[in-house]
């Protein structure tokens, strides 16, 4: 709390006005409208809204397509999170040694964060390309299996997970490096003296001591994968093959803007809102405890 404050009747309101105006017009009002629309069946092209209660939700929750999109979202978000958090921790531990030119390494590890997932997806699309891609080409020496993301669901899913995790690993490295620098060097030295090798030190000291950061990053990466991954799906797989990479955000867009089923799309927004509220609460619960190791 500040002891020194300025006194002015209207100035503070003027100062918060821009932020509050944007918040109400583009956040609260639309969110409330999503809630409203989710209870109505609206005819596209200006028909009248008909109140249908929870029918939109009922329709969604009994729709196998929607169920698939939920499962796909969890596979996608879980895959991105696992891959980028584990890789982030391992690489950050390697980079946290007392070596020269750490700054150069850090830059070399962080910069993919600047690449949009959609652009990364396009690059990975070519790396995975069934006819010209470098990955299927080299794998063809090892196995006769055809790694065709246009036909195989799991290859397509691996492609979008890999591209997304690749852009996000730098974010995790930055957080892990900050956390690792908080572990006293004396702890590591003591373990070394006791004969613990690098792998043992990693599993017995680094992993438990860094776990608050890890939990925090798991939640943040889940939020990122759930809500900021429309681009990679839209640019690369368009939800295919079949609907195997159709995540919730993509289905919401498809049903709302292509299918013009506004009620269903709004109900999907509301269900996503429930997920993001849960994850954000969790994030702040963890953030409160983050410093206590």
């Amino acid at each position, binding site marked *: 709390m500040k002891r020194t*404050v300025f006194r002015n009747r209207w100035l503070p309101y003027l100062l918060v006005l821009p932020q509050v105006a944007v918040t109400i017009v583009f956040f609260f009002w639309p*969110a409330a409208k999503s809630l409203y629309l989710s209870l109505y069946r609206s005819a596209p092209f200006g028909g009248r809204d008909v109140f249908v209660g929870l029918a939109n939700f009922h329709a969604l929750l009994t729709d196998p397509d929607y169920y698939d999109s939920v499962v796909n979202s969890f596979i996608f978000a879980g895959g991105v999170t696992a891959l980028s958090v584990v890789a982030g921790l391992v690489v950050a531990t390697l980079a946290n040694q007392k070596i020269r030119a750490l700054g150069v390494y850090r830059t070399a590890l962080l910069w993919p964060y600047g690449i949009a997932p959609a652009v990364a997806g396009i690059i990975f699309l070519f790396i995975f390309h069934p006819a010209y891609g470098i990955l299927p080409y080299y794998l063809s020496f090892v196995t006769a299996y055809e790694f065709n993301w246009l036909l195989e669901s799991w290859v397509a899913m691996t492609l979008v997970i890999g591209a997304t995790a690749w852009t996000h690993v730098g974010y995790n490295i930055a957080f892990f490096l900050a956390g690792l620098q908080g572990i006293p060097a004396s702890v590591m030295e003591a373990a070394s003296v006791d004969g613990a090798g690098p792998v043992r030190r990693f599993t017995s000291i680094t992993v438990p001591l860094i776990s608050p950061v890890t939990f925090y990053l798991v939640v943040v990466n889940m939020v990122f994968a759930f809500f900021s991954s429309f681009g990679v799906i839209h640019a690369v797989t368009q939800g295919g093959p079949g609907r195997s990479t159709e995540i919730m955000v993509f289905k919401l867009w498809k049903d709302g803007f292509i299918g013009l089923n506004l009620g269903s799309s709004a109900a999907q927004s509301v269900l996503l809102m429930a997920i993001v509220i849960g994850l954000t609460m969790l994030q702040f619960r963890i953030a409160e405890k983050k410093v206590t190791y």
Partner: protein
Amino acid sequence: MHALLILSVAIIAFPIYFAFVVSTQSLAEVVQKPPRLLPSGHLVENYVAAWHKSKMGTLLFNSAIVAIVIAVGKISISMLSAFAIVYFRFRGRQLVFWMIFVTLMLPVPVRILPTYEVVGDLGWLNTYAGLTVPLMASATATFLFRQFYMTVPDELAEAAQMDGAGPIRFLWSFLLPLSWANIAALFVVLFIYGWNEYFWPLLITNTESMRTVVIGLESLIPRSGTEQPTWNLIMAGAMMALLPPVAVIVFMQRWFVKGLVESEK
């Protein structure tokens, strides 16, 4: 250890290296087996061709406008509201704080249809205002400035008041000069956010001349099965789309790490 670290860097850098290599090859070299992993001599002609084919000048210009306006807008309105929250006592202060906090739980997808409608009603579809203003509220930036202002010693405001400086003078001549590190850090993170935003610009732009580069890139990829994709041009386009945000990270690395780690607290 050192070798493992170099290996990690190599794995992380490989997709970009490969994209660069492909962007310097002719189409015949791109499809040859085994794949060529060294750059070839078609760099200039590919980039020029990709530039013209996808109207790259317009796309990059739009992306720059959008990213800069979003970053500057978010920083400005967040500074002002954090200043009001920390340095004034007013009715509704707590309410304003909570409203800003709740925006964290309302990412674009959960309010997409009605936001689109609002922007349409304002006549902002396909305009820079529509591309930027709806994304400008920022809880994280407001919290960062609030946190920072709390650490500024009370004596500074006292001294300013003694000198007869009003609140606006104090913000402009005392707080702003102290805030540059935070501003730079937020700028890097928000610039990247704005540059890479996909969902929103895809929805509210409907002409090529308003597209940003991240969504405009898709126009290089043929969706009909009959046309052979020109992978070298696609990769040249991808390189041009990712160069500006990556350059911002590389040249402002210190601020980037600060912004990333501190704005998420």
